[in-house]
């Protein structure tokens, strides 16, 4: 082993110092690929950990949790649960969102029984050991509130101080009655939580006689399934009964689409990196052919040579891993902020997350990827070298031998992959349990990537002989250089095309998403001014009482008001969004696209409380059709409502059920709203500046700090911005993939030109001037970049098809294709710039080349 390492150091690693730029770029290619993968894993891992920690903290050691969406559970149900012998402990809680008046800090207020506080915090309920907590005061004082020590610091208050919070019920003043030390495992999750007595919370948030959830501790020896059955017998049929793990799984499942998309993009970036690792290793191998021949003459076996080359690749992979780990950590931290915001808007509110953390499994996967990819690339690249006999190195090399056999095989494989992709996309029945979209997303670009190089080489060959003596010598030399090194051409074109294709594809998908959503929002939103209980954005933070809207009806210019409430409800074994809206008022002002059903009839039946309208994505995922009945878990039990219409809708990836607001209020005993939409006269719409003061005056003062009013277009921009935030996250991935692509093409073009030093020197020897040489190099680089750009355009535009399939699989959404004109221009500019930059180093070297030295090499 020591001998092997010494030889490795002497023969392969020491020469790195001779080509530091190339080695750095190779390591950087690997590192960027690893960084993308790690950043995705770290960010998603942190989000998932936060979800798990949050659930763990709130579950407080409970074995089962019962909830019933916004309908809540009644005191009667709570009482029934308490009487069951299967449960050792039963604790109800109320949950609400709040914000400090002096900043952006948000708090989750948990109304719990004092004993539950102790259980959540892992304290001895009788003593409150280690903490400054008076359970007695907490039980008696309706304004009492308890924070964790971290929460105290976060909110900048002291024990005994007043804490004014903005809530759904307006401004409320609390007193910090206690400070507790949370156990380390839930410290981060509880930093943004405050506890207050259950009775006080019920009063503050209008939940008298109700709780949002009930946590159950099973009696000794009771099986969870028996516990579930016992709980089921006590509560309404619509209630959800789950273990904390099941609840976490449900939330994590909602994030799986996002994770899949990001991981897919990082894998594509790694695929691009693989091509370039191959190219740089192949160039390095070509560089060392002479040394390898010498070593073989001196008695090195084929296996020994292979081991040395793979050892070198593993070293490059290891260095790439180190670089990638550092970069991945930085990227992960940057991406985390965007991810938390976006996930909060699109999926679920997350507890605060400070940083990302490495885990053994992620590092192991990254190590396997970086070292594995490098070794695979090196194995492929060095295959011809290690298969040669010793003598073959001593014979003169026949240049210009066209070896397209491998390319032809690759092209056939590409055709087969394309056939698979097209077949799956067009013929496979959907919805399917198989990840068809993801398979097509990988096979389609890979198929084109494998087929395109063969076509490029064939076209170049055709051009070469078609142009013949009519073309200039530099052009012919450039065509020959491209044609006679088909593997190098193939790898460069494929990798660069894939990275450009990613840019264009991402742009296309992003454009299609935003254009489709914008168009849908314009048609779907009935109001001209949208009011939401939010502190900063158009997306509501918490619901408000619908009574707030009543004074606004009398405002001049207000024609109508549409109330809107969105809650998550359990539909069988999945959660969906239930959107309650004043359908009759909305009908005349919105223009939903009905995929099935007739608008007037559907709205009439919904208003009558007989039916619901469902979103197309939900109908697709669950297989709903007109006339099907769906069970809605309401406050007084499950109500079966018929599907009266199916509409194109992008409200929620979970799927949306629309019902009339008044019907919802009756069924769920809930008079809160998330949005109030004011429909204005044309005159008022034209003069919104005059309308805002009137609106502010009409709103109760206590809501001034928290009600956010925005014009329809402003609201749409805010919603699109949230989507674009998500896009920007994956765009970072794409940009890095393109960077890998650009770096890779620079390396390979540089090496390709330098490898032909002798050939170019011969041209100089027979009379070609420096200008001619320069043109040869420029033609070659421009040709490669142009071929890559064309293939990239094809890949980038076709990739919309599998992307749409992936969206369909995860969210049931489908978007309309929009040509990504700007991204195509951007990709072409990147291709041009890369070509120019790629030519700089070889041009300088070629110009300085000593003809005699090069010929003698």
């Amino acid at each position, binding site marked *: 082993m*020591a001998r092997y390492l010494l030889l490795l150091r*002497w023969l392969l690693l020491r020469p790195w110092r001779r080509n530091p730029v190339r080695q750095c770029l190779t390591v950087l290619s690997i590192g960027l690929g690893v960084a993308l993968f790690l950043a995705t894993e770290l960010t998603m891992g942190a989000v998932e950990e936060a979800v798990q920690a949050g659930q763990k903290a709130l579950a407080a050691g409970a074995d089962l949790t019962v909830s019933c969406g916004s309908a809540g559970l009644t005191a009667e149900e709570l009482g029934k649960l308490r009487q069951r012998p299967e449960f050792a402990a039963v604790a109800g809680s109320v949950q609400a969102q709040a914000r400090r008046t002096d900043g952006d800090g948000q708090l989750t207020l948990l109304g719990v029984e004092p004993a539950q506080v102790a259980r959540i915090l892992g304290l001895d309920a009788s003593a409150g050991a280690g903490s400054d907590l008076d359970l007695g005061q907490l039980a008696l004082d309706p304004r009492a509130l308890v924070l964790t020590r971290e929460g105290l610091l976060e909110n900048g208050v002291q024990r005994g101080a007043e804490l004014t919070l903005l809530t759904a019920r307006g401004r409320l003043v609390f007193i910090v009655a206690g400070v507790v030390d949370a156990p380390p495992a839930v410290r981060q999750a509880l930093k943004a939580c405050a506890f207050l007595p259950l009775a006080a919370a019920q009063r503050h948030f209008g939940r008298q006689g109700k709780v949002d959830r009930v946590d159950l501790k099973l009696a000794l020896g009771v099986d969870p399934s028996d516990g579930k059955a016992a709980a089921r017998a006590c509560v309404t049929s619509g209630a959800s009964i789950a273990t904390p793990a099941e609840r976490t799984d449900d939330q994590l499942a909602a994030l799986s689409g996002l994770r899949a998309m990001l991981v897919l993009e990082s894998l594509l970036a790694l695929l691009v990196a693989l091509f370039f690792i191959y190219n740089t290793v192949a160039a390095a191998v070509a560089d060392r052919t002479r040394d390898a021949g010498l*070593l073989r*003459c001196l008695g*090195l076996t084929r296996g*020994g040579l292979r081991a040395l080359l793979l050892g070198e690749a593993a070293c490059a992979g290891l260095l790439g891993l180190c670089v990638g780990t550092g970069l991945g950590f930085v990227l992960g931290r940057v991406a985390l902020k965007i991810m938390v915001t976006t996930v909060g808007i699109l999926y679920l509110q997350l507890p605060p997350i400070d940083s990302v953390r490495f885990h053994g499994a992620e590092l192991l996967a990254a190590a396997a990827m970086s070292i594995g990819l490098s070794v695979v690339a090196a194995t492929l690249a060095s295959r011809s070298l290690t298969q040669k*006999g*010793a*003598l073959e190195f001593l014979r003169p090399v026949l240049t210009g031998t066209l070896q397209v056999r491998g390319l032809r095989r690759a092209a056939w494989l590409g055709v087969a992959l394309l056939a698979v992709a097209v077949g799956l996309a067009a013929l496979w029945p959907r919805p399917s349990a198989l990840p068809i979209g993801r398979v097509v997303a990988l096979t389609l670009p890979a198929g084109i990537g494998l087929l395109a190089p063969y076509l490029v080489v064939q076209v170049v060959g055709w051009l070469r002989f078609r142009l013949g003596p009519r073309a200039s010598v530099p052009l012919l030399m450039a065509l020959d250089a491209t044609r006679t090194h088909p593997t190098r051409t193939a790898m460069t074109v494929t990798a660069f095309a894939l990275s450009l294709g990613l840019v264009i594809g991402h742009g296309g998908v992003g454009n299609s998403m935003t254009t489709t959503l914008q168009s849908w929002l314009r048609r779907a939103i009935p109001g001209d001014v949208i009011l939401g209980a939010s502190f900063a954005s158009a997306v509501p933070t918490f619901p408000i009482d619908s009574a707030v809207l009543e004074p606004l009806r009398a405002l001049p210019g207000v024609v109508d008001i549409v109330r809107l409430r969105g809650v998550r409800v359990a539909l069988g074994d999945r959660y969906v969004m239930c959107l309650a809206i004043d359908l009759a008022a909305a009908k005349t002002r919105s223009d939903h696209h009905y995929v099935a059903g007739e608008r007037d009839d559907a709205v009439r039946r919904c208003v009558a409380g007989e039916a619901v309208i469902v979103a197309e994505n939900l109908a697709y995922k669950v297989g709903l059709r007109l006339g099907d009945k769906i069970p809605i878990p309401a406050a007084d039990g499950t109500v079966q409502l018929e599907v009266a219409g199916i509409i194109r809708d992008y409200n929620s990836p979970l799927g949306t059920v629309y019902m009339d607001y008044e019907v919802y209020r009756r069924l769920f005993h809930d008079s809160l709203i998330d949005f109030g939409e004011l429909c204005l006269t044309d005159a008022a719409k034209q003069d919104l500046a005059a309308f805002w003061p009137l609106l502010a005056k009409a709103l109760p003062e206590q809501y001034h700090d928290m009600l956010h009013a925005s014009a329809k277009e402003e609201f749409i921009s805010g919603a699109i911005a949230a989507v674009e935030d998500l896009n920007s996250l994956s765009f970072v991935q794409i940009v890095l993939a393109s960077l890998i692509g650009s770096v890779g093409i620079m390396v390979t073009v540089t090496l390709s030109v330098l490898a032909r030093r002798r050939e170019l020197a011969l041209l100089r020897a027979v009379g070609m001037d420096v200008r001619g040489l320069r043109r040869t190099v420029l033609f070659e680089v421009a040709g490669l970049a142009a071929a890559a750009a064309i293939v990239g355009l094809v890949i980038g535009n076709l990739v919309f098809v599998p992307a749409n399939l992936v969206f369909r699989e995860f969210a049931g959404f489908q978007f309309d294709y929009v040509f990504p004109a700007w991204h195509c221009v951007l990709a072409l500019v990147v291709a041009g710039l890369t070509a120019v930059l790629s030519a700089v180093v070889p041009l300088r070297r070629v110009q300085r080349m000593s003809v005699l030295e090069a010929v003698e090499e």
Partner: protein
Amino acid sequence: MRYAPCIDASHVVLTDVHKTYGHGAGAVHALRGVSLAFEPGRFHAILGPSGSGKSTLLHLAAGLDGPSAGTVTLLGRQTGPLDDDELARLRRRSVGFVFQFFNLVPTLTVAENALLPVLLDRRVTPADRTRLDELPAAMELSHKKDRLPEDLSGGERQRAAIVRAMLPAPPLLLADEPTGSLDSATGALITSLLRAQASEHGVCLIVVTHDPRVAEQADEVIRLRDGVVVARESNGSAR
């Protein structure tokens, strides 16, 4: 597998060796029925015009290539039945190479280049270390042992190549145009150093050359033309 000691007086024996490259009308007959024996302690020079089969003969003698017909026996073992790896092992333990263009590894110092064939085979022993002191001293390279090849003159590079070829103490030393890229004075020095390996250390030395001055130093001169041995001259008769 270690190489078994020589059982024959000749280190390399070629018996009716034919070597043909290519097929059909395009076939090139590099050697046609060559039978030769190369003995230890003797300096064999192979002369002939370009295309006469000199290099092919050297490659066969080194076990770098196999004959199309006939047998090559290298240190008592026929090379024909050996696979590529066995030939590689045989080469690194028994054959030293000196090339026209030195072929030193540019990133290794003279001493590291010299140790390379040993390291490819086994650990470096104290005996190797002793030879690493002695051989450069004999070649007047002691002061340049830690230099890279780029810091050496042409003659010094070729002396370093001889040190590398001789460090594992191979019974067979092959040289392909060793003076081809050197001036005449340096060429003469290199030739005498090579000759010393045969006469003083009992090495079987085979040198392919165009240079009659190199051939003058040889114990035996073999002249090839069109793949056939046209003359074998011993000692003074070659001069």
